[in-house]
């Protein structure tokens, strides 16, 4: 059965481009379910496809001591949404490294819901956005810590670079904590390229466009440092960046 079409009144869809999503909703509506058994590991790399509208909806269940690491590049020409619902049992670890790279009138977003159900779970979400034109890049991240999920360690780090005045970055971390011995941190910043870094690169001979491209590459490429095979996603990110700089 097809899930009901979302409304912007729902918190996790508030920045979505629903007009673009509507015609293709049915083909995406059901989430994919992934299960990582006790003590097992999963590493996924998600690359953008060529479609104007791209929606990835994944439910991920991590058993005791399971580990999952996801590297995702979100760079749809019109609307890209990566939606993740994760549950963690005792000692499970989840890491998400995601980039929104957007230009024109595009909207790209991550919407995550991380549920710490067991003791000593660890989650780490790192999102970097590079946006120009009138592009929108968002992160809506909810972390829930269940009663009894003590020693949970949850981290959200979100940074965005806006290259034009019309670009918009949204960041909305949300915490719901029902245990008393947990560590949940979140940090967000929105900025422009550092002028002294630009001058340093230019003083070494790079023209302003090359210097900007290189600095933006540095901003994004750190995301893939821990991937087993960072080459493909690194190259895809580089190409997306080249398109917008």
């Amino acid at each position, binding site marked *: 059965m097809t899930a009901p079409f979302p409304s912007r009144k729902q918190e996790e869809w508030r920045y979505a481009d629903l007009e673009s999503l509507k015609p293709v909703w049915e083909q995406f509506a059901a989430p994919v379910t992934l299960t990582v058994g006790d003590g097992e590991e999963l590493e996924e790399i998600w690359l953008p496809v060529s479609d104007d509208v791209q929606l990835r909806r994944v439910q991920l269940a991590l058993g005791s001591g399971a580990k999952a690491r996801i590297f995702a590049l979100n760079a749809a020409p019109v609307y890209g949404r990566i939606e993740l619902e994760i549950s963690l049992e005792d000692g499970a670890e989840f890491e998400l490294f995601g980039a929104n790279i957007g230009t024109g009138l595009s909207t790209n977003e991550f919407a995550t819901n991380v549920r710490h159900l067991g003791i000593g779970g660890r989650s780490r979400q790192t999102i970097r956005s590079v946006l120009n034109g009138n592009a929108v890049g968002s992160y809506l991240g909810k972390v829930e810590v269940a009663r009894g999920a003590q020693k949970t360690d949850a981290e959200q780090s979100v940074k965005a670079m806006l290259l034009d005045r019309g670009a918009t970055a949204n960041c909305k971390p949300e915490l719901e904590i029902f245990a008393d011995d947990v560590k949940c941190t979140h940090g967000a910043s929105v900025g422009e390229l550092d*002028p*002294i*870094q630009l*001058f*340093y*690169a*230019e*003083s*070494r*001979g*790079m*023209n*302003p466009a*090359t*210097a900007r491209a*290189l*600095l933006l*590459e*540095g*901003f*994004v*490429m*750190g995301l893939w440092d821990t991937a087993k095979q960072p080459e493909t996603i690194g190259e895809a990110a580089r190409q997306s960046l080249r398109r917008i700089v």
Partner: protein
Amino acid sequence: MLDIANLHVSVAGKPILNGVTLDVPAGEIHAIMGPNGSGKSTLAYVLAGRPGYSVTQGSAQFDGRDLLAMEPHERAAAGLFLGFQYPVEIPGISYLQFLRESLNSQRRRRGESELSGGEFIKLARSQAALLGMDTEMLKRPVNVGFSGGEKKRAEMVQMGIMQPKFAVLDETDSGLDIDALKAVGAGINRIMRAADKGVLLITHYQRLLDYVEPDRVHVLTHGEIVRSGGPELARELEREGYAEAAA
């Protein structure tokens, strides 16, 4: 080679340099000494073209070309190198990638062929070795996690790779221990002591000048050169202080 005439510079509307005149011919190393706040770093930055440093009067010619009309990257391609007092950290970009892009940008602009990855690594490795720097450090992000001394050594490695015609070195000696000071001094002599090159060495203390003998020494105070002399002037300054020597 570098010909500065009556240069006036303001930063955020405040005059910092008040008519600097200085001529560094090819084959010479000149030292600029002066107390804190005298305008030494402003002179370095304005020569390299840092935004926010506005020239209100005067000129600077480099090899007969109007230096002040060029963009920072054009100055680099023309052969000007600025050694930063505080080298900048750039996370996410390795030193090798940064320098290869820099050098090849310069070479493209001069109509020369680019160096391949292999050629570049060979060059970088040999220059790092000459400065006593571990090549592994060049695989790390630009200046991230480097000590003060390592950053300054890395600036000299960059200079060795770029082979500029003229170097403006802004307090390259600050933050160096004695071994690093010797290595950096030897690097400056090796890379820049040549009949067709020149150096403007900006420094606070005389100690670097024990390793790099300047042809001329100038004293900058309140944005003006108040005295010039031979290498003995640096020793006098060290002995008597700026207030005395500039009087």
